[in-house]
């Protein structure tokens, strides 16, 4: 093996070791956060201020209304902040965003997508970044966690009247006990490693050659921490984690990858603890980890092998990648960010080799489940597990059940609609954009690569990833509006279905397992869930993929 391969293996080993080290204690901590009856003093004060009874359990529909109400307020607040930027302090002289752009950005940050049609350094001031984006980075991630925990409670509870927790309590605890303290520590680590943290405006300096260059300033480290920890992905700068002020060294690079993977990979443990069977958590973790590992191997191999004319000529597929990190670290970051619905990048995905870029696209199309966004990954994976249980359960001669809950007509309707939602958004959005003239206008490259760019954009928006393939000119009213709609539907339709499912499950009486019950903690089941994910997504997207990345890869 070459040194490059050794380095690639070594960094993955370090990453996996770090994730493994925190898995058990952190999983238990998260479970305690969402199950303890105790409130912190600061939380009590907050509940009193907003007049919420933190111990009142909500039925699923009330929980859902709380999620939607809160998110609607977030969207409206962000929209106002964006539109009125010119009149607000700390705007660094930037004007307000245009209506379509403000809509897109408001939805983007409220849905944990963080799709950015603008360049951070050229459009958004510090106030919008901190009071708008940073706040949403915390709360939208906490919303995802809350919904996942609500679904887990649905599995764990038996025979309630569809009560699945209190959204306001879950939302608050996610911020006060998980995201805020962890990102505070993470921000300190980042600052210590060279990420900038200030409230300076951009500073003009003279270069050695005598030209003038603008050095950018801002509260970057604090944003960076929650950007990754909350699988948000919205960078302070346009270049995102490829920018040296956001991600200066190979260490910060690996640390940021760790941040974006740590909560999604830990949640299966929390799930296992809360449903009272840790083996179930291991199984879900097994599915997530094997899909992530497969994507990583494929992408790293594709990038290192560098198929295609340009990489062959240049000697390596380095176009669009940072020399600080190299091929393997870029592949690791790219796979992790697309597999977690983060969408931050340390390299330009558009410049990946055709098969490498295809894997990244497939990661997103998979529905952000391996391990997926904070919370969203777990609930997405549990829905896939239910689909797997339905078919496999029949094959062992029982009506299907998962964790003691029967998967009947109503449950299946919710799950089927969930599985339908994002493919519908992605396919319809992409289909419209390649035939309508405002859509075609944004496509830079002709042919298969152009199709991939559009597909990637809608996949990213519909699955709340937020990374861009680049190459597609968005920021036009057409794309801003349509992608905004895609993000909104892609976030809240699944959440509504998941919470309805949680309510259904919580009201069911648990069936104790017997020798005839399908075991859902064994390797066979892990393989089955992974196969269901691959087959469902594969069969849906093979036609369009074959006209995009597949054709490219074969040429």
């Amino acid at each position: 093996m070459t040194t490059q391969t050794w380095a690639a293996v070594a960094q993955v080993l370090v990453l996996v070791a770090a994730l493994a080290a925190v898995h058990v204690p952190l999983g238990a901590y998260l479970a305690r956060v969402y199950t303890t009856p105790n409130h912190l003093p600061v939380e009590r004060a907050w509940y009193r201020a907003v007049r919420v009874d933190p111990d009142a359990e909500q039925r699923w529909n009330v929980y859902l209304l709380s999620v939607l109400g809160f998110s609607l307020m977030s969207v409206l607040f962000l929209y106002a902040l964006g539109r009125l930027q010119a009149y607000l302090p700390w705007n660094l002289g930037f004007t307000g965003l245009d209506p379509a752009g403000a809509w897109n950005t408001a939805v983007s940050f409220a849905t944990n997508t963080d799709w950015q049609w603008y360049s951070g350094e050229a459009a958004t001031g510090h106030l919008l970044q901190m009071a708008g984006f940073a706040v949403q980075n915390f709360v939208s991630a906490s919303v995802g966690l809350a919904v996942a925990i609500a679904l887990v409670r649905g599995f764990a509870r038996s025979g309630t009247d569809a009560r699945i927790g209190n959204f306001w309590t879950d939302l608050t605890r996610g911020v006060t006990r998980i995201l805020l303290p962890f990102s505070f520590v993470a921000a300190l680590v980042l600052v210590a490693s060279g990420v900038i943290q200030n409230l300076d405006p951009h500073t003009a300096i003279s270069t050695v050659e005598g030209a003038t260059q603008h050095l950018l300033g801002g509260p970057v480290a604090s944003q960076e921490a929650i950007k990754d920890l909350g699988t948000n992905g919205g960078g302070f700068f346009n270049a995102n984690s490829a920018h040296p002020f956001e991600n200066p060294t190979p260490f910060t690079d690996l640390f940021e990858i760790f941040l974006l993977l740590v909560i999604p990979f830990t949640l299966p443990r929390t799930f296992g603890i809360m449903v009272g069977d840790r083996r179930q958590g291991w199984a879900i973790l097994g599915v997530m980890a094997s899909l992530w590992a497969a994507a990583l191997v494929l992408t790293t191999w594709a990038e290192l092998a560098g198929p295609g004319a340009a990489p062959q000529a240049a000697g390596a597929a380095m176009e669009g990648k940072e020399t600080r990190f190299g091929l393997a670290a870029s592949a690791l970051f790219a796979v992790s960010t697309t597999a977690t619905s983060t969408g931050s990048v340390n390299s330009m995905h558009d410049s990946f080799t055709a098969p490498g870029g295809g894997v990244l696209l497939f990661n997103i199309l998979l529905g952000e489940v391996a391990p997926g966004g904070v919370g969203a990954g777990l609930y997405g994976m549990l829905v896939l597990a239910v689909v797997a249980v339905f078919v496999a359960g029949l094959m062992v001669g029982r009506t299907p059940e998962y964790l003691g809950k029967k998967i009947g007509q109503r449950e299946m309707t919710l799950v089927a609609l969930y599985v339908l939602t994002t493919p519908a958004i992605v396919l319809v959005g992409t289909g419209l954009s390649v035939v309508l003239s405002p859509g075609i206008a944004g496509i830079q490259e002709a042919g298969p690569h152009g199709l991939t760019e559009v597909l990637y954009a809608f996949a990213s928006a519909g699955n709340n990833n937020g990374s861009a393939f680049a190459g597609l000119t968005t920021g036009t009213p057409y794309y801003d509006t349509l992608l905004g709609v895609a993000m909104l539907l892609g976030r809240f339709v699944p959440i509504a279905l998941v919470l309805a499912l949680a309510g259904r499950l919580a009201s069911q009486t648990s069936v104790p397992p017997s020798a005839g019950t399908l075991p859902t903690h064994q390797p066979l089941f892990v393989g089955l869930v992974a196969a269901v994910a691959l087959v469902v997504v594969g069969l849906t997207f093979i036609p369009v993929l074959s006209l995009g990345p597949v054709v490219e890869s074969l040429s």
Partner: protein
Amino acid sequence: MSTTDTRPVTPTSAEVPDGGIRHHSKRGPAGRALTWTQVRAALPAALRKLDPRLLSGSPVMFVVEVGAALTTVLAVIQPDVFAWWITVWLWATVLFATLAESVAESRGRAQASTLRATQQQTTARKVAAAQDTLDTGTRLDLLPTVEVASSSLQVRDVVVVEAGETIPGDGDVIEGVASVDESAITGESAPVIRESGGDRSAVTGGTVVLSDRIVVRITAPAGSTFVDRMIALVEGSERQKTPNEVALNILLTSLTIVFLLAVATLQPFAVYSGSRQSLLVLVALLVCLIPTTIGALLSAIGIAGMDRLVQRNVLAMSGRAVEAAGDIDVLLLDKTGTITYGNRRATEVLPVGSIGPRDLAAAARLASLADETPEGRSIVDLVDATYASSGGEPDELPAGAELVPFTAQTRMSGVDLPAGDGGRGVRRIRKGAGSAVQRWVHSTGAHVLPAEEAELAAHVDAVSRLGGTPLVVAEQVGEAPARILGVVRLKDVVKTGMRERFDQLRAMGIRSVMVTGDNVVTARAIAAEAGVDDVLAEATPEDKLALIRREQEGGRLVAMAGDGTNDAPALAQSDVGVAMNTGTSAAKEAGNMVDLDSDPTKLIEIVEIGKQLLITRGALTTFSVANDVAKYFAILPAMFVGLFPQLGVLNVMRLSSPESAILSAVIFNALVILALIPLSLRGVRYRPASASSLLQRNLLIYGVGGLVAPFVGIKLIDLLVSLLPGL
């Protein structure tokens, strides 16, 4: 001490010598394979089912039919060999689906016509009296009767039926006893006894009274009798989709929508790429992708599942119960008649003191020769088989022998033999409960040695502890003091093969509970011998109901079999309640299945059929979806190879031309339905095994098999299709 725990036993009950489980089917064709005759007979109905209004219940097949209609229009507008071939095969796809359903239904239809024959209009002799006289009066058969048409009978009417007459409707015998020929319904030619009161009072309309005369109170109005319901069930006319079938249909519908979207949006992508596709090809792609295999066979699987129950003489009143049978966690079985033969049998003699086993056996035999109870007969059988002396024993008591019958006061029975040669006095032999016989022995002035007394006590105790009943035998010759000879072990004999059955149940994850009126010690001993998991001893009907409720509260599904009126609440409460056909109408109303053979162990087969039904659905769904991979490899390169020649690499099957590739996929898709009709009617093979080994096996066959099979099939079809002119 005789018939304490026997139930009415009819010729159709579970008293089958081999251990009780019947596998033979009494009706329907023996071979389950699809024959041309069947197909020809089912074809007209299959064509009628093409009516889109009927087809809309199956979204998958409805989409195929719309697609077929569309391609027909296209083929008419622009006639072309390829278009016509596609159109023909799309219609064939729909037709194969309706054919599967219609073949499945035709099996029941033959049976329904036999049943209908029993429903001929008959004349009923209705007792003409005021309702309150009918409700309270006695000797109703002496009241005047009027002749009315059987169809005009109302509930609570009372009719008189004599030998040779057909019973005009469902009802309960309220006076008299008669032997009834129920072969029209059960297929069993031996007559059964029906009598007023007790658990054998229910009679079914259409059956024939062979002897005697009974008075019947009608319990079901004409048109909704048992036979009417049977006809509706076997014909499938009342069939409603079962919950799991509905859930599966939802999954299939959502898959259909996903593929509809994938294919519909393929056109804009194709246009963008510069290779607009014809509507014909898109329809062909869509039909190949949507889960047509399972969509076509789903209702046939359900009908065939019900049919398999009917083959085993079980009538399920709802499909829901058949499905629930696959999920059963706990099985309640009555001890007597189900786990054990109905009666206690003598299995061993245990002599006391200096008495030899043969002497004890001979004495016990003499005491039992005239005893007509099953226990008495079993003693004779035992002695003749095991302890017979070389000379053989007389089959008749000597002349002058006096039978001492069993009474509740003495609690023993026996025989007094006349004084014979050699000057011996009258020989009195007694057998009965230990305490009663001992009291008799003492009353003759005997002093039983302490050692003998201890030995006797040890025998009695040992027999009781092992679940048997000790029968003490003593004799007195002349006026000498009586002496105790020993103990005969009477035992509930567990039917052979029960342990294996319970092992199988355990492997399926089903816990078996034996229900008995016996005391705990006896019950546990029998349970251990039979291999039952748990036991409910000294059970009253209320205990049974409480046990079912308790299990259900824990989320478990409970199945039970029962026949008595006092079983009715428990039958109604259980998730799968199988009523015996010999039972009361109350039991039959309460259960959701009726076993015409009245064989309680058939619950096990019912569970297997339920599981088989679910497995068949799961297996064909997996197969159907796995097939899509190969179809993509056939069709996608064919669609776009003109634009992107590099996609030719994906044509791994080396199909001869784009047209033949697409047509071959469509033909394979249609033929696979036809090929799987027999499997869907027969059901996937089910062997009791753990869930993971079942999953592993079925995933391998239907998942991996489903991936591989179409590659081979499409390639073979392509070899033939490429020979077609004009393609």
